[in-house]
């Protein structure tokens, strides 16, 4: 490539500018975090299932006692944090694969972030409320 074809004057080579950047233009950090949160949820799935099973057949008062206990709250908080992060990355990959209009894509990615954060915060607030008994 000749110098005139380079869009901006830069000391970086064209390859250097794009190296390690994928479709998200943000490198491999999302790839790594998706694996990390996936492994975290795989480790947490058994305790989470046990917690859900423990609440089966009990009314709200019984569920409140179980869900508000410290180990259960920690297990659920970890699982919710990992799943919100994991699903945010996963849905962004889907959006980037199928939505080609740049503005629609940006709006979709933004909505995706709002959704993941809203679900995570609402669930976290519920667990804190169950734990503190207010």
């Amino acid at each position: 490539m000749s110098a005139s074809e380079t869009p901006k004057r830069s000391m970086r080579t064209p390859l250097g500018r794009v190296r390690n950047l994928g479709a998200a233009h943000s490198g491999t950090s999302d790839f790594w975090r998706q694996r990390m949160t996936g492994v975290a949820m795989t480790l947490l799935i058994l305790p989470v299932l046990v917690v859900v099973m423990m609440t089966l057949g009990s009314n709200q008062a019984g569920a409140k006692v179980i869900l508000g206990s410290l180990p259960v709250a920690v297990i659920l908080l970890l699982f919710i944090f990992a799943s919100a992060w994991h699903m945010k990355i996963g849905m962004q990959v889907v959006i980037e694969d199928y939505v080609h209009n740049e503005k629609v894509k940006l709006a979709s990615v933004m909505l995706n972030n709002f959704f993941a954060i809203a679900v995570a915060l609402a669930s976290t607030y519920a667990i804190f409320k169950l734990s503190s008994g207010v």
Partner: protein
Amino acid sequence: MALSIVHRATGVALYFGTLLLAWWLIAAALGPAAYSYVQAFTGSIIGRLIVFGYTWALMHHMLSGIRHFVWDLGYGFKANEREALTWGALIGGIALTVLIWIIAYAIGGGR
């Protein structure tokens, strides 16, 4: 076998399925009235089918994800290994789902 699209589809289903998890926790925090709506839903046929589907999506996505993790680590690329991993995720996902529901009913969750 082309199961990567199933991995993606179950992922999207689980994405919206987290609303169920959030609803359950928020209702438990709000009180008996809110919680009774959740129990009415999970006690209904359609609700039970949705939670059953959610269980399968979760189990399949987890095993299918482990399959992808094996590939990320550089193993399992031979034709027979790929087939085994894919069938393992498919059969394992169904088996785990059925097992979880048998346990749930056995401990009185079917009431």
